[in-house]
Every structure is written in structure tokens, then in C-alpha cells.
């Protein structure tokens, strides 16, 4: 793998990312499965980087999961997204940050459709007005939340307490990244680094001292497939796709999977458990699984946030071995405590994963 070749490609896909004054839209999956990631992200922007970001309580789901499982029509989702734009306008913002890759993909698809078919834009304006009396502007700048972290990766590196390096061996951690199909496969120009060798996560890993590992099935889908996971009968498809990725990355001995999309993060974490139950096969060193982190969690870790405030204990694959490798200090007693310090029950240990 020649890095110069990738860097050459990255030059062609540097998108414009706004510097401040953001309107934030949350993700159904990220807030449900990784709520601390969203909270950390906002805290990082506001407290650590001093940015203005508005977390509007009035926006709803974009209906993306419904759209991609075909129970929500294109007309409906365009109007829901237009409503978000309308609320953004109302709040006086022009730069949007989207916390979910599925949503991000939908926003790009809608904006591109409006560009090519102005009559569809006009119809959406009409629909939104008819339904809510609202009007909207298209955002001046649109970023996925990881684009923002990418933009400030060097500031984060400067403030960092830890690097993605094993302090005992002095070696960088081997990190595989997973971008999530809808980030840029539809429209490469919307993704930092394009669709084939995206830079958005690789750039963070580089800046924080880790080593990016490119494995053959890096670009492959995690397997969510919307209806393919939502319906129990189809889940064999979802798990088969994740398994294909694990088998492909295994020889590279990754210390960590860094994921862009909340759905992918969840599936790649949970499917390792399910595969261990179904096939007795556990990936990762010492049958401990390969930790799967969101980019917010990784940023929080290097900045020295408490891993249990970041929510790492609520991943199926536990991260203590990773924390040890990074030389991160943590309190094991604090792991399953409530905010006010009460001890919570300890989750059950799976049969085939070593904790």
C-alpha cells in the first residue's frame, strides 16, 4: 500500500467544511445506542473548541430507516428534511451538521435531486407549506459530524492527553476504519477523501498517531441492509456481511475498528457476539473481540475523557484491553455506576467472549 497514492486522491476530494455556527441534527441510532457520543461531540465543540452549535429539540427523525426499507416514500422524506431546513432557517443557521450517515446520504440525495429536477424542489416547497405553513432554504454548508472532527483533528491532537500508540512497545495501534456506505458511495464529492479511499477517519487516525490498516473488504457494507436487519427472517444476510469483513480483517490483527456510521458501529459490535454464539468463533486477540468505536468516542479517549462517561462499557465488545494498550487510566469500580454513584447490576458475560 503506497500512501502517496492515497494522498494524491485526497487532494481531489477536500470539501468545504464550515468553521463555526452549526445547526445539529441527531441520529436515531447514534442517540439510542451511543448517546454519549452525541453529548461528547456537542461538548467538544462548545467547551473545548469554543464553537456555536444549536441542538434544536424540535427536529425529528429524518425517517431514513423507513425510507430505505421502503415504507416511507421519497416525497415524504424530502418534505421531512425540508422541515428540518425550515427550522434551521428559523433559528438563524446556515451550516448543518448531521450525526447519522444514513441521514447524511439522504440529505445529499435530496439536494442532488433538487439540483437536477427543480420541479421536485418546487413540489417539496409546496408540500411543506401546505402541511406546516413553513418555508425553507437549502443549507449553505452541509457536514457529517465526522467531517467536523476531521476538520479539528489537529486541534484535538494538540489538546490530547493520549496518542494512539502503545506506550510500552512504542508502536502505533493498528486501526481499521469503516466509513458506512451512505457517506460518499452515492456522491463521492460529499465525502472527505471521496468514496474509494475516504480520508475522513484515516485523517483522524493519522493525526492522533495510529496506523491505518487497509484490508481487502474495507469498502464492503456492514450488512445492515435496512429491511435485511429489521426483519428477523433476513438477519442471516446482515450477519454474513459483517462476518465477511471480520474474516478479511483478521489477518491484520486490528486493535480497533473505527466507524463513521452509528448503525455500522452497532452491528459490527453486536455481530461479533452473535457469531461467537452461533459458530463459537471469537475475533480479536485472546478471544476478546475487536472493539468498535465511534469517532467521537475515540476523540474523547485521546482527549482523556473518562471512558465510562463516553459509554464504552455499553458496547458488547469491551474495551479494557484497548485502554491498557493505549495506557489510558481508568477506574474499574466506576464502570457500572449511575451518575450519582449508585452501583448498577453487572451485565451477563457471553459464553464465548473473554472479558
Amino acid at each position, binding site marked *: 500500500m503506497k500512501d502517496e497514492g492515497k494522498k494524491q486522491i485526497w487532494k481531489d476530494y477536500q470539501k468545504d467544511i464550515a468553521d463555526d455556527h452549526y445547526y445539529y441534527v441527531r441520529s436515531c441510532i447514534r442517540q439510542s445506542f451511543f448517546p454519549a457520543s452525541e453529548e461528547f461531540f456537542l461538548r467538544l465543540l462548545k467547551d473545548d473548541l469554543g464553537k456555536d452549535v444549536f441542538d434544536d429539540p424540535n427536529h*425529528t427523525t429524518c425517517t431514513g430507516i423507513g425510507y430505505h426499507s421502503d415504507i416511507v416514500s*421519497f416525497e415524504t422524506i424530502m*418534505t421531512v428534511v425540508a422541515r428540518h431546513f425550515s427550522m434551521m432557517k428559523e433559528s438563524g443557521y446556515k451550516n448543518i451538521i448531521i450525526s447519522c450517515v444514513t441521514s447524511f446520504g439522504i440529505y445529499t440525495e435530496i439536494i442532488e435531486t433538487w439540483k437536477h429536477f427543480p420541479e421536485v424542489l418546487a413540489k417539496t416547497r409546496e408540500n411543506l407549506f401546505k402541511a406546516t405553513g413553513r418555508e425553507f432554504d437549502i443549507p449553505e454548508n452541509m457536514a457529517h459530524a465526522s467531517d467536523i472532527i476531521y476538520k479539528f483533528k489537529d486541534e484535538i491532537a494538540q489538546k490530547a492527553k493520549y496518542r494512539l500508540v502503545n506506550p510500552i512497545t512504542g508502536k502505533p495501534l493498528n486501526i481499521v476504519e469503516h466509513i458506512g456506505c451512505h457517506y460518499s458511495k452515492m456522491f463521492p464529492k460529499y465525502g472527505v477523501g471521496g468514496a474509494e479511499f475516504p480520508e475522513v477517519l484515516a485523517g483522524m487516525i493519522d493525526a492522533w498517531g495510529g496506523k491505518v490498516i487497509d484490508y481487502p473488504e474495507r469498502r464492503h457494507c456492514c450488512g445492515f441492509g435496512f429491511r435485511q436487519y429489521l426483519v428477523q427472517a433476513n438477519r442471516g444476510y446482515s450477519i454474513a456481511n459483517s462476518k465477511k469483513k471480520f474474516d478479511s480483517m483478521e489477518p491484520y490483527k486490528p486493535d480497533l475498528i473505527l466507524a463513521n456510521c452509528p448503525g455500522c458501529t452497532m452491528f459490527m459490535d453486536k455481530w461479533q457476539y452473535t457469531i461467537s454464539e452461533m459458530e463459537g468463533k471469537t475475533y480479536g486477540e485472546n478471544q476478546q473481540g475487536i472493539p468498535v468505536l465511534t469517532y467521537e468516542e475515540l476523540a474523547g479517549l485521546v482527549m482523556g475523557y473518562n471512558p465510562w462517561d463516553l459509554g464504552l462499557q455499553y458496547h*458488547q465488545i469491551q474495551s479494557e484491553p484497548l485502554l491498557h494498550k493505549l495506557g489510558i487510566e481508568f477506574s474499574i469500580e466506576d464502570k457500572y455506576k449511575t451518575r450519582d454513584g449508585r452501583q448498577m447490576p453487572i451485565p451477563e458475560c457471553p459464553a464465548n467472549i473473554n472479558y
Partner: protein
Amino acid sequence: MGKLYDLLLQDIRFEEGLNACMNCGVCTAICPAAEFYKYDPREIVDTIQTKDEEKTEALLKSETIWYCGQCMSCKTRCPRGNTPALVIMALRTLSQKLGYFTDSEKGRQQFAIKRTVGENILKYGYCVPTYAVDPKMHPEQGPIWEHIFNNIDDVMDRLGGNLKKKGSGALREIHQKNLDELDKIFEVTGGYKLYGEIENYSEKKAGEMGLEFKKEGIDNEYFRHVYTCNSDNHGK
């Protein structure tokens, strides 16, 4: 020219997704569904571009159109700028409008999705909130998930969420005025119409299959059937 083809053309995604196909196979080569199902997006696009009425109808009634996982990898690669996945979405939409989806095992599953994600959207304002992912329906989520589900208030609180409370924050309660606007959007844009079509055709199918059907919820035979039935005939 087929009537069905004309109906498909009314879908903007169909117009966007289908130019002339040269049968090169880059879409199938990269397609996760082609790898794990008896599925070939190239053949679907090729069939559609014949505009043959009978073949199109057969597709709308088939298992095939439900195999795609909508990862959109085909869009990145097609040398003719086609997007088979968008063509598939148009086919699925039409299949539901015409009631053809209940002819196939995979198509019938739309009912289960409508009753879960579909209802969540309008009830909570989220597609998939934590409290709606019941470990009983999701054993694959594992013990940590069960733990979160059972201790959701404490977990959300510790992680900075704002579970079912007013104001902003993760998993906040979506204010009724916002749900009302969502409701209006569904009304104006045909969202409810589509839901209604899924419901009506499913109810009819449940009758034909002799399975119990209820107007609401997931506690009925037809739901359980479509949610779990796998004839295991979708692979090689």
C-alpha cells in the same frame, strides 16, 4: 411500451437510476445482496429496460426485488451512471401500490416493517428509539443490550441523555407540536396512503393464508409469520 413501465417512469428515482445498461456486471460484482442471495442487479436492470409488461409484472411480484440492502455501492461504480438500487426502490414502491408485494415471502415483510419502524416514526418521532428495541425481538443484540434495556433510565442518565424528557438532548421526548407537523406531512405527501395500502393488502393476504390479523400492534399471527418466516430458498 408497457403500462407498468410508464408507472415506473413517474418515479423520479427510476428516471435518475436507469439509463441504458451495457450488462458489464460491475454492480453485481460489488453487490452484497448478490453475494448472499440469488440476486443479480444487472439482470434486473436488463429486464426492466426491455419494457416488457409481463416480465415487469413478474418482477414486481417476485422475491428478487426485496433482496437489495440499499447500500448504494452499485451507484459508485456503474460506468453508465445507472443506480440499480434506485430502480429497485421504484419497483418496491410500485409493488406496494399495486398490492403485488404480498405475493412474495420477502415482500410480505413490509407489513412487519410498517408495524415497527413505521409506527415508531409517528408515535415517538424516531425510527428506532432504544426503548423500542426489545431484546425479545432482538436476541442477537446480546446481554449488554438487555442490560441497557432493563436499566435504561440510569444508563441514559449516566451517558448524558435526556430520555423522554422535555428540551433537547439524546432521546428527548419529541414535542406534540412537532409530531403534529410530521403527521401533516404524512397526510399531504401520501405517507398515510402508503401505510394504508400496506395494511389493506396485508390484511387481505392474511385472510387468504388463514392467519390471524389484528388492526394494531405486533401481537398477531400474521405479524409473527412475516417477521420470522424464512423458506430458506433465497440463496444458491
